[in-house]
């Protein structure tokens, strides 16, 4: 079932991805085609099969909680697009 333009805009909103009208039209067509290819999965019986989250089964690895040096202030701010003093400057979050 093809996606509607509304659905494409909704997904883009969830992903916080700015899309143009032309992109919505193109994504609608391309994503619909790709989703059709996913239907073959329904033919595979997965009754009682557990999901795989990663291929090499490892339990959680823990380490001792020991303090160690971390990145410097200057390093952390080095790539920030907008800074002020020792802060990253952002837009107002609450209107």
């Amino acid at each position, binding site marked *: 079932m093809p996606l509607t333009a509304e659905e*494409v805009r909704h*997904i*883009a909103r*969830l*992903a*916080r*991805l*700015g*899309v*143009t009208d032309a*992109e919505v039209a193109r*994504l609608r067509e*391309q*994503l619909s*085609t*790709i*989703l059709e*290819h*996913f239907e*073959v*999965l*329904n033919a*595979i019986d*997965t009754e009682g*099969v*557990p*999901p*795989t*989250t*990663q*291929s*090499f089964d*490892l339990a*959680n*690895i823990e*380490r001792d909680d020991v303090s160690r040096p971390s*990145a410097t202030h200057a*390093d*952390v701010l*080095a*790539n*920030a*697009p*907008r800074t002020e003093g020792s802060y*990253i400057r*952002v*837009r*107002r*979050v609450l*209107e």
Partner: protein
Amino acid sequence: MNGVADFRARELLDLTAHEQAAALRAGEVTARGLAEASIARVRAQEPVLNAYITLMDDEALAMADAADERLRAGNAAPLAGIPIGVKDLLSTRGVKTTAASNMLRDFTPIVDCTVVTKLREAGAVFIGKTNLDEFAMGSSTEHSKFGVTHNPWDLDRVPGGSSGGSAATVAAGGVPLSLGTDTGGSIRQPAACCGIVGLKPTYGRVSRFGVIAFASSLEQVGPFARDAEDAALLLSAIAGLDPLDSTTAPVPVPDYAAMLGRGLDGLRVGVPREFFVDGMEPGVREAVERAIDVFAANGAIIDRDVSLPSVAAALPVYYIIAPSEASANLARYDGVKYGYHADADTMWEEMELTRGQGFGDEVKRRIMLGTYALSTGYYDAYYLKAQKVRTVIRREFAAAFASHDLLLTPTAPTVAFRLGEKVGDPVAMYLNDLCTIPANISGNPAVSIPCGFSEGMPVGLQLVGGMFEEGTLFRAADAYGAVAGWKAQRPPIYGERGR
């Protein structure tokens, strides 16, 4: 440096890393001489190949000088002084790391990724950061903010992807070794397209710390080389447990070099029929069939009655799991802490504009696909279903390896396609990874090695091994390579010629 030494350095550049390592120890060449020769050749080829995003001449020469000191002191590691290309998805402290994206075009990491740290400690010489599909999403290196990379065998064709720059520069003789990453075939398919060796390690064999994340449960860093011995040398240097990556496996790294020179005799090789698909190029099929004959003639036990019935589902499973993980991993690019930033009136507008302008088409497509698959109402139908089918596929691989040492398949159904041929048709592009994706889904190690030509372009043979059995892959690749001799074939642009 005098003319004779200069000539010898260029000559050595045509050899493998292990031959260069021997020459460095014999005093035939210095690491600096080798680095200068590599830089000169890479720079001469860049106008036609575009294999690199950033060249690191100054760092390279400093690293070479340090390697020379250690070589003189006699305490140098095997890779000391060897020129290496590094995919621009791997963080390098103080050197721009872009992921070929507008989002990170000016990003300079504050740490090295673990594999880069290990190679620095080994005394390797980084020549530059190689081109790729944006965030490693693609099979042609056409989705790069920094332009396409060309295939050294035919400049009108793609080098494969996503690690196309790393493959092209090794094939063209710029460096003997390079690093790539493989999430769905991004090392093996470009290795096949460019006629070299490329290996995806077992999931958990190599640290992913500091590698710009795309699909965390699927990707691994691995080597490109001109022969199996060199690939083994590079994997030995980067493999192993890393306290900074809790998904690395507590499995000792074996002595891969000890697996070389053992021949093919007695190896149980399965040829799973599902990988020989209908749309396969006849010349690719013939080359793979001839390789199977070589394996059989040299004592391998070939079993053609092997089936992995669910492997056809690996492609849709991949295109659910990888974009889902990508949509989560790429959520960090918000234009606040680092990366591209677009100005707008409100926080949400800024974020949407930043991401809309920072990401290219293929990356947006995958973020959208993954966000959809994870969204309310679709999670069970897509993501959970894909993870369950992933278990089914893993079980089929495990069953096959209970009675076989290797599985043998083509690496890709066709040779390198023409630039622009598939870039407008995502599904056609995705189908190119049909044969490589299953090993990412299952986690098994797999290598692509050259096995002949079709349409004048190299064909890749894929060998898949049991979990953590990279040694068996090196053994088979080394033995086949020695008999078949494809390593001697060089693309027309090789060295300084062909411009």
